[in-house]
């Protein structure tokens, strides 16, 4: 009891200090001077209530733990049908899912489709980082750098040389892969915290480079007016630029700006399906197994004749190329990019997607990407406290499901 009283006082104190700083005071400009405003009385009541809640929950944490352990947990395993039936219905389920994904955007609002496109981008990023962090076990905090490389590859090639989106997709992936390779070399010998710091630095380097190389990248102003993707040369604009045709003219239908949004969404769906397929194959190939083996025990790998240099570099390279892919599409969708889009928080969000999803698990990563992009959108009013909610989500997950939403399942291999 003494211990938990101490704990409770300590936790409540911390909550009070943090809440005062984050919620209780606010900076505002008064002419040219900054002034600190205190919060209103009702907000202070909320803060005090929160502190009280923390105090009580810490004080009675053991009792609460015992109570919560008595709540029966639904066993999700039993929901899944038998192995045989599952095998039979799986292709149908997948087909239904794909058809659903393709039909759905025609029935909802533009905003929803746009959000779905953003989610798909994060799914791609999550799947790519999952190779590096989830499978190979290399903590990469600068993943956003490769995303930036992909985005700027398309933006610059399109602006200076008039390359099309489709031509830039593979180029962006290759270039990002090259950057992954370059980063991979110096960090080969690093592990854990050291690796995290170096990759973090690398991410910042790329961002600062883009910010300062004004003559080419436009610096903080970024690049705007990036070409939208075309469908076999058909543009999705109201009026065709010279020598081309627009989609609605070609098919003789009414122009609507929604067509472009849906088209972008469909491209994203296509890209995500390609990425899922490729990574799924990779995971079942020797290289995928080697990544995981490296995560499990590097020394055993070396003793069995696995070249860790090649394995680590391939993880970095393939992970980076996925981000390049996503970046290229991101630039095309936004039509405008600047270094602002590639700050550290992005890396943190992508990493959170991988960790929340359940390291290594593709379905988990997809679910987590949906949660991480759709939730903030649903909770728009609280957007000031986005990071706070983000932290809360992490804490809850670590308590409730430390292994992630959908922990990775081992493949069952037929022995023949």
């Amino acid at each position, binding site marked *: 009891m003494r211990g938990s009283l101490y704990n409770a006082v300590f936790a409540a104190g911390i909550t009070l200090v943090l809440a005062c700083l984050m919620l209780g005071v606010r900076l505002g400009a008064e002419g040219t001077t900054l002034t600190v405003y205190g919060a209103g009385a009702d907000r202070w009541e909320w803060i005090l209530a929160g502190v009280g809640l923390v105090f009580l929950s810490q004080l009675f944490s053991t009792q609460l733990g015992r109570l919560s352990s008595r709540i029966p947990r639904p066993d999700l395993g039993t929901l899944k049908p038998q192995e045989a039936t599952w095998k039979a219905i799986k292709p149908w389920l997948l087909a239904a899912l794909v058809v659903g994904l393709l039909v759905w955007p025609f029935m909802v609002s533009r905003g929803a489709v746009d959000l779905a496109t953003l989610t798909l981008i994060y799914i791609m990023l999550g799947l790519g980082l999952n190779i590096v962090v989830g499978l190979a076990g290399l903590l990469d905090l600068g993943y956003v750098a490769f995303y930036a490389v992909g985005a700027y590859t398309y933006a610059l090639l399109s602006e200076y040389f008039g390359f099309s989106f489709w031509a830039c997709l593979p180029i962006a992936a290759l270039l990002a892969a090259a950057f992954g390779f370059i980063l991979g070399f110096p960090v080969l010998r690093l592990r854990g915290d050291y690796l995290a710091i170096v990759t973090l630095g690398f991410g910042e380097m790329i961002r600062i480079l883009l910010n300062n190389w004004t003559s080419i990248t436009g610096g903080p102003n970024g690049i705007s007016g990036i070409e939208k993707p075309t469908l076999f040369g058909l543009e999705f604009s109201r009026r065709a630029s010279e020598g081309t045709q627009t989609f609605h003219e070609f098919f003789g239908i009414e122009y609507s700006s929604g067509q472009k949004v849906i088209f972008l969404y469909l491209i994203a769906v296509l890209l995500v399906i390609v990425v899922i397929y490729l990574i799924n194959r990779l995971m079942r190939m020797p290289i995928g197994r080697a990544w995981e083996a490296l995560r499990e025990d590097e020394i055993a790998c070396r003793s069995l004749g696995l070249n860790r240099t090649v394995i680590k570099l391939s993880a970095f390279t393939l992970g980076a190329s996925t981000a390049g892919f996503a970046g290229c599409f991101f630039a095309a969708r936004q039509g405008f990019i600047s270094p602002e889009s590639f700050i550290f928080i992005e890396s943190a969000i992508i990493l959170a997607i991988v960790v929340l999803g359940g390291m290594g698990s593709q379905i988990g990563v997809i679910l987590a990407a949906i949660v991480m992009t759709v939730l903030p959108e649903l909770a728009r009013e609280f957007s000031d406290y986005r990071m706070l909610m983000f932290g809360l989500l992490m804490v809850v997950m670590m308590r409730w499901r430390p292994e992630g939403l959908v922990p990775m399942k081992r*493949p069952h291999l037929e022995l023949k």
Partner: protein
Amino acid sequence: MSQLLLDVNELTMRFGGLLAVNSVNLSVKHRQIVSIIGPNGAGKTTVFNCLSGFYIPTDGSVMFNGQQLAGLKDFQISRKGLVRTFQHVRLFSKMTVIENMLVAQHRHLNTNLFAGMFKTPAYRRLEKEAMDRAVYWLEEVNLLQHANRAAGNLAYGQQRKLEIARCMSTQPQLLLLDEPAAGLNPNETKELDQLIVRLRDEHEISILLIEHDMGLVMGISDHIYVIAQGTPLAEGSPDEVKQNPDVIKAYLGES
């Protein structure tokens, strides 16, 4: 075959001021079980680390199959057919037993990305061969029924056997076993004893063994080296070693 499989000359390893291995000579012929014994801290594991490329020896030469190993990296040495186990089991614990076996055969597989993506016939053939070899060795060590279980969930004795099977699937010529019987019960030790002999007699490989279980060592070794405090103390057949006064003194002195 008169040529030595492994020929170690004047192997020396220093850690700062500590002379962990001091001018050790070893040789292993084809189809031989050779043991290294000695008290804890004698430098046995360090010898293994030097042979397998995990440490770069301060001095001395290691010839394997008539070839200098100096300058080769650990994974290159293992690819030449000199494979080791560890004093503490090192499995890929979250992966399944069969996956452990397949990872070990990585270099025998087609690792070309495009071949794998398109499942070319050559790729499939190699995958199948690897799978067959994995199944073969799992059967040899009686683990086939656990093939799709996570390696970390096996009982300790099974993990030990899996480690040996995993090494064997790489098709080595010389297997280095570091205290394989540590922590096994008498039954499991007997099984291990038979397995090692079978590896020599049926699979025609050589084994270099570090072990404290004297019953096991004396029963199966063709030749024994004794080292104490990094320095060679005696060598010979099991009988010769058993009667060597220096060895008796070292062992009695220790306990």
